[in-house]
C-alpha cells in the first residue's frame, strides 16, 4: 500500500482549477443545444438499460410468452414512459420473450420504472406460474437538464426576462462588457463575479468560451448571503466590490485582478451618469458610453455607501450624502429616481421600511416590497421606474403537503413601480422567477437590470436581464 496509485481528485472540490471547470459547465443562451445533448445522453443510457434489463428478464423466463406490464413510478413523463415501454418490448422480443394477453401465459413480468435521488431504477418482478417471484433490476444515472421559466404577461409596462447565464456557484453580479447592437442586441463578452473569482467569457461561433478566470483573494471568510458588484472603471476594466475587499481588474492583456482589504464605499446608482458609464470593446479598453439624457443623473451617480464587511447590508453611512443626510438606517439596497431638480433616493432598510430621501426630508414607508430594489431608465411613463422584489406568496398562504403533489415551489418576483407624489404605483405585472432572488442590480447602461435567482429545483444560480417594453 505504500506505493498506492490514486485516482484523480474527486469532483466538487473548492480549488480554482475545478472551479474553472465548473465554469465551462454553464448553460448560457445555448439552452436548446445543451438540452438536446442531455436528452440524447439520457436516451443512450436508457437504451442500454432497456437491453440489459431485457437480458436479465429473458435469463429468468427463457424464450416464450409472458404477460408484460410497465408501470411508471418515476418522474418520467408519459411520452418517455411510452417510449421506454416500447423499446423494452422490442428488446424482449429480440430475445424471444413475447408479450401476450393475460390468459395466454402463466409467466408475468411487471416492470416498474422507478428512481432514487441519483439514478433511474428499473425493476422487473418476474413470476413463473404460482412459484416465488424473482427480481431483476438495472439502474443508470439520472441526468437533470436546466430549466428556465418563461416570462409572465404584462399590464402597463412589460418586463421581459432574458436568460443570461447559469452556473452552480453563486452569481454575485454580471457585467456585460460588449454586445451586439440593435436590432439584435445580445451580450457577446461578459464578466461573471462569484464568491471566489471573476470569469470572463466570450461568445465565439455561437458558443461561450471562457477566456480567463481570476481568483479573488480574501483573508477573512465571506459573510453569509454574500453580495458583490462589478463596476466599470475609467482607467481599468472593472472594479470589484465585495464585503471588506476591493479588487481592480486591469484592462491590458493578460488581465490581472488585484485585491486588497478595503472599506471603500460602494457606488450606488450605476449607469446614471455620462461620467461613469462605460462600454468596453473587445480589446478590453474602456470607452465612454452614450450620454444619459437629462442633466440630473450625475448627481445620483455620485452617491456611494459603505458596506458592512461581515454582513449583508450597507451600514447606512453615505458618501457624500443626500442633501443634508449623511446617514440613513442600515439598508440592503438603494435606487435613485431623478426628478427635474433633485434626485429622490429610495433605501430599502434592514428593518423592512422604505426611506425616501430628497435631500431635505426623509419619508418612511412600509410597503409589501422585498429587500432588493433597483431603478431603470426607460422610454415609458415618467422615464424612470423602480424594480422591487417580493415573494410570490406575499398575498396568500400556501400549503404544501407531503401527501399532496401540490408542493409549492413558487419563487420570488420583480415588479416595476413609479413614484407619483411619493406613493408607489405598480406599472407592470410581476415577473415570476423559479426561486429566491439573491441579487438585483441596475446594469451598466441603466436601462436594464440584472436579476440572479437561486433555482432550488435545478440547484444552480440563474441570471436574467430584465428589459422593458412600453405598452401600446
Amino acid at each position: 500500500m505504500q506505493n498506492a496509485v490514486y485516482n484523480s481528485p474527486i469532483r466538487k472540490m473548492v480549488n480554482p482549477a475545478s472551479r474553472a471547470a465548473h465554469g465551462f459547465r454553464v448553460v448560457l443562451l445555448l439552452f436548446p443545444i445543451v438540452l438536446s445533448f442531455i436528452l440524447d445522453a439520457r436516451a443512450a443510457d436508457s437504451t442500454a438499460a432497456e437491453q440489459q434489463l431485457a437480458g436479465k428478464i429473458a435469463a429468468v423466463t427463457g424464450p416464450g410468452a409472458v404477460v408484460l406490464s410497465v408501470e411508471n413510478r418515476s418522474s418520467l413523463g408519459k411520452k418517455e414512459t411510452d417510449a421506454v415501454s416500447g423499446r423494452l418490448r422490442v428488446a424482449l422480443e429480440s430475445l424471444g420473450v413475447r408479450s401476450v394477453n393475460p390468459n395466454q401465459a402463466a409467466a408475468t413480468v411487471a416492470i416498474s420504472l422507478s428512481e432514487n435521488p441519483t439514478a433511474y431504477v428499473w425493476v422487473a418482478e418476474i413470476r413463473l406460474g404460482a412459484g416465488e417471484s424473482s427480481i431483476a433490476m438495472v439502474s443508470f444515472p439520472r441526468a437533470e437538464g436546466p430549466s428556465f421559466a418563461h416570462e409572465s404577461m404584462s399590464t402597463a409596462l412589460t418586463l421581459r426576462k432574458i436568460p443570461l447565464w447559469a452556473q452552480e456557484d453563486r452569481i454575485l453580479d454580471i457585467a456585460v462588457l460588449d454586445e451586439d447592437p440593435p436590432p439584435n442586441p445580445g451580450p457577446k463578452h461578459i464578466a461573471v463575479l462569484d464568491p471566489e473569482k471573476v470569469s470572463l467569457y466570450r461568445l465565439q461561433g455561437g458558443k461561450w468560451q471562457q477566456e480567463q478566470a481570476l481568483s479573488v483573494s480574501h483573508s477573512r471568510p465571506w459573510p453569509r448571503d454574500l453580495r458583490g458588484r462589478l463596476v466599470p472603471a475609467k482607467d481599468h476594466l472593472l472594479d470589484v466590490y465585495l464585503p471588506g475587499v476591493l479588487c481592480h481588474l486591469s484592462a491590458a492583456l493578460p488581465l490581472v485582478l488585484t485585491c486588497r482589504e478595503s472599506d471603500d464605499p460602494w457606488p450606488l446608482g450605476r449607469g446614471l451618469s455620462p461620467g461613469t458609464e462605460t462600454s468596453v470593446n473587445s480589446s478590453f479598453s474602456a470607452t465612454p458610453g452614450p450620454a444619459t439624457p437629462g442633466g440630473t443623473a450625475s448627481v445620483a451617480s455620485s452617491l456611494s455607501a459603505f458596506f458592512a464587511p461581515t454582513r449583508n447590508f450597507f451600514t447606512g453611512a453615505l458618501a457624500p450624502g443626500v442633501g443634508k443626510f449623511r446617514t440613513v438606517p442600515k439598508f440592503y439596497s438603494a435606487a435613485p429616481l431623478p426628478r427635474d431638480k433633485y434626485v429622490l433616493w429610495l433605501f430599502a432598510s434592514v428593518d423592512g421600511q422604505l426611506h425616501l430621501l430628497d435631500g431635505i426630508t426623509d419619508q418612511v414607508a412600509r410597503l409589501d416590497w422585498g429587500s432588493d430594489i433597483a431603478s431603470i431608465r426607460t422610454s415609458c411613463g415618467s422615464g424612470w421606474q423602480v424594480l422591487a422584489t417580493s415573494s410570490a406568496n406575499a398575498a396568500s398562504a400556501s400549503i404544501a403537503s407531503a401527501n399532496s403533489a401540490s408542493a409549492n415551489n413558487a419563487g420570488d418576483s420583480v415588479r416595476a413601480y413609479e413614484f407619483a407624489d411619493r406613493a408607489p404605483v405598480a406599472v407592470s405585472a410581476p415577473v415570476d422567477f423559479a426561486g429566491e432572488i439573491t441579487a438585483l442590480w441596475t446594469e451598466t447602461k441603466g436601462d436594464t437590470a440584472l436579476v440572479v435567482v437561486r433555482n432550488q429545483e435545478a440547484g444552480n444560480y440563474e441570471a436574467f436581464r430584465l428589459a422593458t417594453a412600453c405598452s401600446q
Partner: protein
Amino acid sequence: MKLFGWQRLAASSLLLTALAVAETRPQYGGRLRVSLREAMTSLDPAGGTSVASFARRNLTLLIFDTLTTIDDRGELHPALATSWQAASGNQRWQFRLRQGVKFHDGALLTSDNVASCLRTANPSWKVFVDGDFLVIERDTPDPNLPAELTLSHNAVAKKDADGKLSGTGPFHIADWQPGKKLVLAAEENYWRGRPFLDAIEIEMGKNLRDQLIALEVGGADFVEVGPEQIPRVSMDGARVSSSAPVELVALLFTRDIRSPEEKLLRDALALCVERASIRSVLLQGTGQPTGGLLPNWTTGYGFVFPTDADLPRARQEREQVRTAPNWSVAYDASDSMARLLVERIALNARDAGLVLQPTTAANADLRLVRIAMASSNAWIALTNVAEASGLVLPKGGENSVEDMYVAERELLTTQRLIPLFHLPVTYASAKTLKDWTLGADGSWRLADSWMGERQGNQQTVSGKP
C-alpha cells in the same frame, strides 16, 4: 409542476399559514429557542455512534464540522477536506485538509487533530498523516468512506486540558448543563461565514406535549412534533416541516431463529400486521408502510417488498406449528406512539393466533425499535440499520443498486427484523424563524436561518423632516 418520488418527499414540508410577507434578505441577530425530548449528557462527537439520534446528530453538526458533507441527493461536498482520492481498490483514501481553519478556542486545525478524532471514532481504521494528506486505510474496500465521514460521530473536536470541547463549526458552546440546557453562540470567524443567528438556546428532556405548549405560549421557537400532534399544530398556525421518511419503525427479535417452527411463526407475525390501517389511524396518515429496511426514495426499489397484510396466509403459517410461545414485546415507556403501535400489532397478532405481550421491561422477545437513518447515502443507511439491529451487513458486490437490493434482502432473510413504517421527522417552528429548511434526511440547516419580526402587508407612509 408535478413532483415524483424522492423530489416530492424532499419537498414534503407542511407550510401552513405562511404569513403574507415580502421577500427579504436574511437579518443578523436573534436568539433561537429550541426544545428537545432527548437529554444529552455529552456533546463529544466521539461519544456518539454511527446510529446517533436526529437530535444528537443535528446538535453535533452545529458545533463541529466533518471532513465531507452530503446533500439530499446523496452527493458529497467538501467541508474540512477540500479534496480526496482513492487508491485502486478503494481501501486507501487520502484527504487534503482545508487550510486556515481554526477551532473555537483559536487553535489552528491540524491533520493530527483530525487523525486523532477519526481513530477514536473508528478503532478499526488506520488513520495517519502523510505529508500534506490525511490517509485512511481500511481492511476491506470501502467505496463509501468519504460518505461515512459525513456522520456526526466522525466530526472533528478538540478537548483542552480541562476537558472543554472545541469545534470548528458555526456555533461555539457558551453554556452547557448536561442533560438540561445548551446555549450556543455564533462563531464570528466561522470559515463558511458567521451564522445569522446570534445564539441558539436548547432545552433538553422536554416531552412532546410540553414542547408544543412552549411553542404555543411563545416559550420556544422550534420544537419536535409527533405524528399524532401534526393536525393540532397545523390548526394552531405554526409552521410544520417534515423530512422525507427517514426513521425505520420495526419489530426486532432479540435473537436469531432457532427452529423451522420459529421461522413459520415469525412469517405469520410479519404477514398479519395491518400497516395501512395503522398508518391512517395511529399515524394520522404520516409515514409510509414498508416491508424493506430502506425507504423507497433512497433506493428506488423499496416497493418490491410487500406491505399488505395477508391474514389467511398468516393463519396458515401459524397453524403449521402446534404450540406457539407468548412473545413479550418491549417498547420505550416514554414514547406514547410506541405503546399504541405495540398494542395495535398485538391485536393483529391475536387474529392470526399469536400472543404478543406488550411490556416496558428491557428483557423481552421482541422490541419495537425506531432507527434513525444515518445518511442519505443508502449504503451507509443500510449499514447503520444492520448495526442498530445487531446484524452484519453482507460483504461483496460492486456498490450498485442491485448489490444493495441483494444485501438488504439477505438482512431481511434473517427474519430478525419486521419492518413496519418509515416515518418522517417533524418539527414545528415559530413564524419568526425564517429561511429554515429541513433536509430530506432530517438535518436542521440552522446556520442559514434567521429571526425576523416582519409585519404583515400594509402600505403606510409617514414623514420625518
